[in-house]
Each structure stands twice: as structure tokens, then as C-alpha cells.
């Protein structure tokens, strides 16, 4: 009696514990009172400098959200080459982590609803744009840019396009900036635009401060050879926005899960791996400066037809 009783208890315990442990990852826990018709969420990601690292980071977030919401969260990469807005629709995404410019486009054209955005490890949640030139080019204001080669990033970026556009307009340039300069070069990524100016392929350029500052830390030539001519106001960093017809309950549950993430141990662990301090709630008002910048640049998001080239 005494000899088999402990074995029996252990087996019983193992049988009762095992399935809950084994399926933890695959069978999301459902919070009482919440269930959604939708079984999965397809979230798009705009590629970053290292897409492989990006996929790994977002996987931790996805796993956590799947467990919290009881809805499987899947990530897919939105190719930044081409029409992001079109892809969002054709590939039936439920949401995406948009850059500020692409958010504004999606908001105006598709009516997406902002949910939340990450707080960077340094505590920032916003970024701004820099307009810079080679120190030895003698360019110090808009007049000096006339007839020079200018390095833009892409026609769908805030720092790398919208901000210089507004800057030129604000400085009294009446013609389209792409015609004002001798050559408007599009480099496709912020680092490429910065490197182009540094390597004299262009005389001046525009890019976001986070990339510029990071590169300046790694390459002392940037601080020495480049000079910042203008700095924009702040715009929100990559923000998760969902399609307008997504179940509002699911949207609010998603927001709640993200915002409360730093308040439980599991969430904290996922945040650490994701590389953020937490998430803050984000709404369309946070983009007021961006909208004003667009107005200054004469760019209407509602009618803007973006096709990268």
C-alpha cells in the first residue's frame, strides 16, 4: 500500500499537470468573459535595417499577445518597396506597425485606428528629422542648397522626405523642392542617405535622428564632416494601427494587453526580449504635428499616390 501510493500520486500529478504545461504555448489562455469571433490577427511589419533580428524580436511579442488575447498573432513583412497601402489591403492585414508617414497615409486613405506604440529602451517614443550637409560644402541655409545634389530617403518617409519638403516651403522656396535642387536622389533607407552625403555622392540630405545619432556614435566622421542645418518637431515612432472594421472589443483588448504588458512578469520578459520598456496608448491626436508638417509641405495624405521608385 505504502510502496505504490507515492508512485500513483506522482503519476496522477504528472497526468494532471502535463497537458497544461505542454499546450501552454499553443493553446492560448482565455480570459473569462472575452472571446472573439476572429481566430487570428495578421500584423504587418515595415522592414527595419536587420529584418531577421526584427522577426525574432516581434515573435516574442506575438507569442505573448497570443496567450493574452486567445487569438493567434501572426506577423508578416510589408515590403517597403512598392505601395504599402495597397499591400495592406490586398494581403488582408488586420493591422501593422506603421512608420509615421505610412500611418498618416493609411489613416487618411483606409481609416486605420491607432492602438499603441513601444517605448524605446532610452525612454523615447518619438523621433524627429534632421536636415544636414557636408561641413565643407559651405551649405548653411536653403539658399546654399540651390543647384546641389540632395539625398532624400523615400517619398513615403517623414524625416527623409516630408520634413525637407516643408523646410524648403517654409524657407520660401516656391518651386517643388525636387526641381529646386540640381538632383533629387532617393536612397531608399536612412543610413544610405546619410552615407551618400558623407561619401560626397550628395551635398545635403535628410534622415531621422535615431539612425543619424546611432551612426554618429559608430562613425566619428559623421560628427566631424557633417553639419545639421535644421531639426523638425517630434513625431511618434512606429505605431501599431488596425483596420477600421476590426472588432472594437478586440482592438481595445489588444491596446489593453500592450499597455499593461510591463505590469506582469511574463509581459516584462517578453518586453525585454522585444527590446522596449513598454507600450503607450497612441491616438490620432499624437500625429497633429505630422499633419501640420504635411500641410506646410502642401502634401495631402488623402490623395497622395505613393509609388516608390
Amino acid at each position, binding site marked *: 500500500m505504502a510502496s505504490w501510493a507515492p508512485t500513483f500520486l506522482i503519476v496522477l500529478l504528472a497526468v494532471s499537470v502535463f497537458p497544461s504545461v505542454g499546450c501552454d504555448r499553443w493553446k492560448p489562455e482565455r480570459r473569462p468573459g472575452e472571446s472573439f469571433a476572429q481566430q487570428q490577427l495578421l500584423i504587418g511589419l515595415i522592414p527595419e535595417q*536587420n529584418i531577421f533580428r526584427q522577426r525574432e524580436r516581434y515573435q516574442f511579442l506575438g507569442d505573448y499577445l497570443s496567450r493574452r488575447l486567445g487569438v493567434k498573432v501572426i506577423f508578416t513583412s510589408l*515590403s517597403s518597396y512598392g505601395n504599402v497601402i495597397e499591400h495592406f489591403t490586398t494581403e488582408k492585414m488586420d493591422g501593422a506597425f506603421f512608420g509615421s508617414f505610412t500611418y498618416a497615409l493609411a489613416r487618411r486613405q483606409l481609416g486605420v485606428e491607432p492602438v499603441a506604440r513601444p517605448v524605446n529602451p532610452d525612454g523615447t517614443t518619438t523621433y524627429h528629422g534632421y536636415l544636414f550637409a557636408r561641413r565643407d560644402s559651405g551649405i548653411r541655409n536653403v539658399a546654399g542648397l540651390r543647384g546641389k545634389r540632395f539625398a532624400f530617403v523615400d517619398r513615403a518617409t517623414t524625416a527623409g522626405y516630408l520634413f525637407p519638403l516643408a523646410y524648403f516651403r517654409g524657407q520660401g522656396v516656391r518651386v517643388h523642392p525636387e526641381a529646386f535642387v540640381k538632383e533629387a536622389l532617393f*536612397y531608399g533607407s536612412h543610413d544610405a542617405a546619410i552615407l551618400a552625403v558623407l561619401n560626397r555622392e550628395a551635398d545635403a540630405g535628410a534622415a531621422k535622428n535615431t539612425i543619424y545619432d546611432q551612426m554618429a556614435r559608430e562613425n566619428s566622421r559623421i560628427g566631424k564632416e557633417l553639419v545639421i542645418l535644421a531639426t523638425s518637431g517630434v513625431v511618434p515612432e512606429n505605431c501599431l494601427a488596425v483596420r477600421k472594421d476590426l472588432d472594437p472589443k478586440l482592438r481595445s483588448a489588444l491596446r489593453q494587453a500592450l499597455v499593461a504588458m510591463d505590469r506582469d512578469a511574463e509581459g516584462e520578459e517578453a518586453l525585454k526580449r522585444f527590446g522596449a520598456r513598454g507600450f503607450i496608448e497612441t491616438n490620432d491626436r499624437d500625429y497633429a504635428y505630422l499633419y501640420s508638417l504635411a500641410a506646410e509641405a502642401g502634401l495631402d495624405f488623402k490623395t497622395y499616390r505613393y509609388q*516608390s521608385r
Partner: protein
Amino acid sequence: MKKRILIGLGSLLVIFLMGSLIAVFYITRTTERMDRLILLHQVEILREDLIIHVQQVQSHILRDRVRSSGDVDLLVAQVQEMDRVMDSCMGCHHTPELAQGLSSMRDMANDYKSAISGLITVSANPARVAALERRVQDIGQELIAMTQGMAFTANVRLQQKTEETMATIREVRLVLSATLLIGFLLAVVTAWVLARSLDRVLRALLDATRRIARGDLQHRVDITDSKGSEFRELGEAFNTMTHNLQQSRRQLVQSAKLAAIGELAANIAYEVNNPLTGVLGYAGLLLKSDDIPAEKKEQLKTIERETLRAREILKNLLDFARRKPPHLERTTVTGLIESTLELVRGQARLSNVTLRIECPQGLPDVAVDRDEIKQVFLNLINNALFAMPSGGDLTIRASCRRESIGQDTVAVEFRDSGIGIPEDQLDKIFDPFFTTRIEGEGTGLGLSISYMIVQNHGGIIEVESTVGEGSTFRVLLPAGRT
């Protein structure tokens, strides 16, 4: 022998163990080599996998220019798979040369990944996109070439390892066969040696048994095994048994002889006694008559004296033949020896014989007829003195032997340094009328009567003698029986 059997079995065990150890060692070595070979094959599969994955990524980038989300997802999955395969390559132990190769391959893969990231991240400038694509393809091709180069090197090594392993297997087969054969031969030799030594001893014992069965009780087995071995002990026990058998037979023969002679003697004594009574009566009458001259009377006295002597002999004979049951009383052998010695001390001194008495304290009592046993001791001492005409030593030693549980035997030993008794006479000394003395000095009945007395007490007399060294007579009497 037990030791020998143990050593034999032990050496067989050692041979077996050594054989097993050799087998285990070689099998382990072979399986290790096989494992390594299998591992190399697995590594080879990993390399092929890697090439396939890099080629997949390459063809993906070449085929369409990574437009849709699905494309990016697939590309990311393919690169991740390529990475995983490369990780499992890196996870193994390698030679420094190979490790360096893998390390540079890993660096190149990282370049490849960053180039792909750059290509996917770029969102404008077709010329730059094309340049990035070229860069990706170039690195990819280089990576494939490098992996193929390493695969070629690995293939050469794989072949070399396969040959080495096959050589090891052949060697192992040879060593195991040799071990088996040597083990078998050694086992056969060990078994043969064991059987032979057993056989030798058993044959000696069998031969001795047959000789004893034929009546050769003098035969002794001679087993020259090491001291303390069971066979040596068996041989000694066998010899003791034969010795005891010889003694018993001698006593049995003696008893039978005595009984027959006793009966004959009694008849003769009875028949001769009557006429002697007549002779003696008439001789007496004649001696009393006055008409017999004095010189004739002297002759008559001789007749009477000799007749009386004859009657004394007859009386002894009758005593010998019609033994009365002994009158037993408890006494100590020490006391018996002392009182006997009182009678012979003078004679011993005259014969120049030194007497030594060794009677330890605490000997058990014996139940004997004091006079009869004293007669036995006296007879044995007299014989000893006679055997030492020019003096010597006579040691009388009493001791106690435990024959079996609860039965003690008191032994009284008379050891002289006399002339000894030849072997051929040892069987006859207890016979009536057997004597080595000159006629008239002894009747030859002393030892016979002593033998009968001791036998009637439930004891025996043993004798050992060596010519020129002396004789030992041992009287064994049961202790404490009344």
C-alpha cells in the same frame, strides 16, 4: 588441491575477463569510429542542406524582386533555415583549420543576411536596388562556392575516415579471433593440467587401496603435494588408516593365537599335572624313608625340585589359560608405576640403566586390577632391562589421549634404548613360548600373559621398534571405568 583448483578456475576467469575486456575495448573503439563516421555523414548532409538553402534564397532573389509580404516572409524563413543549418554546423567540434573555415563562412553568411536586409529595407532608387541585388547575389554565390569547397574537403576526409574505419574493423576482427583462440587454448591447457594432477593422486590412492586389499598392509602412499594440501592430508589419513588396520590385524591374530594356544596349554597342563602329582608324591615318600642312601637322596631332591618347577610352569600355563576376571579398583597409573619401580630400582642400578619417569599431574584415574597391571609393568620393565645388557635409558611416560568424545585413554609408554626387535619378530613377540633368551632363563609367557591382562582390561599393548635404537611398548588403558 583446493588451492590449485581455485587458481585454475581463477586463471580461467582472468583469461575470460581479459578476453572480454579486449573485446569491449575494440568494440568501443570501432563503434566510436563508426559514430564519428555517421556524424561526418550527418555533417555532410548538413552541408548539402546548407547549399540547398542558400541556392533557394539565391533563386528567390533572382526569380522575382521581392515585392509582396509573402515574398519577404518566405525569404526570411529560408534565410532562417539556412542560419539554423549553419548553427548546427558550428555546434560540432572541428579542427582549428575547419573551425576557421566555418567562422569565415559564418561571417560571409552574416554579410549575406545584412545585404538581404538592405535589399528588403530599401524603398527607393532602382539603381541602388539593382546594386544591392547584385551584391546579394555575389555574396550568395561566394557562399555557395565556399560551402561546396568545404563539402569537397569534407568528402575527401569522409572517404579517408571510411577507409580508416574499415581498417579498424578488419583489425578488430583479427584481434577478437586471436583472443578467442588464445583464450580457448589457455582454457584447454589449464583444464588438462588440473585433470592430470587430480588423476595422478587418484591413481596413487587407487593403487594403494588395491595393494591393501591384497593384504599388503606395509604399503604407504607417498603424495608429494605441497604441505597443507588436501591430497597430502588425504594421503596421511590413508597411511594412518593402514597403520591402524595393521595394528588391529596384529592384535586380532594375537588374540586368536593366544586363545588356541591357551586351550591347548590348559589341556596339556591338566593331563601332565596328574602324573606329576604322582611323581612328586613318590619322590616325597622316598625322601622320607631311611633306607635311601644320602647320595641317592640328593638325586631324589633334584627330581622333586625339577618336578616342582614343572608344576610351577604348569600352574603358569593354567593361569594363562584360565584367566580369572580382574578385580577392578580405581587407582592412578602414577601410583602403579611408582609401586612397580620399587621392585626394580635395584636391578636397574645393577644393569646401569637410567630410569626417567614423566608423569604429569591431573591424569585421569583408571579402573584396574592393581596386581595384574603391576605384573604387566614389571614384565615390560624387566624385558627393557634385558634388552639393554650394557646399560642405557628407560623412559616411562604416562599421558592422556582423548580418543573420542567422553572417552579418554591413559597411555603408559616404556621406551628403552636397547637392541630393538627385528621387524620379522614384531608379529611373534606376544606369542606364548616365544623368547629370545637362552633356554631356562625365560618361559616365553611374560608378554603373552601381559597382553591377555591388558586385553581383559579393555586395553591394548602397542609396540614400535627399530633395531639398534630401541623399542617402545605402549599400554593403553581406558580411563575411569569400573
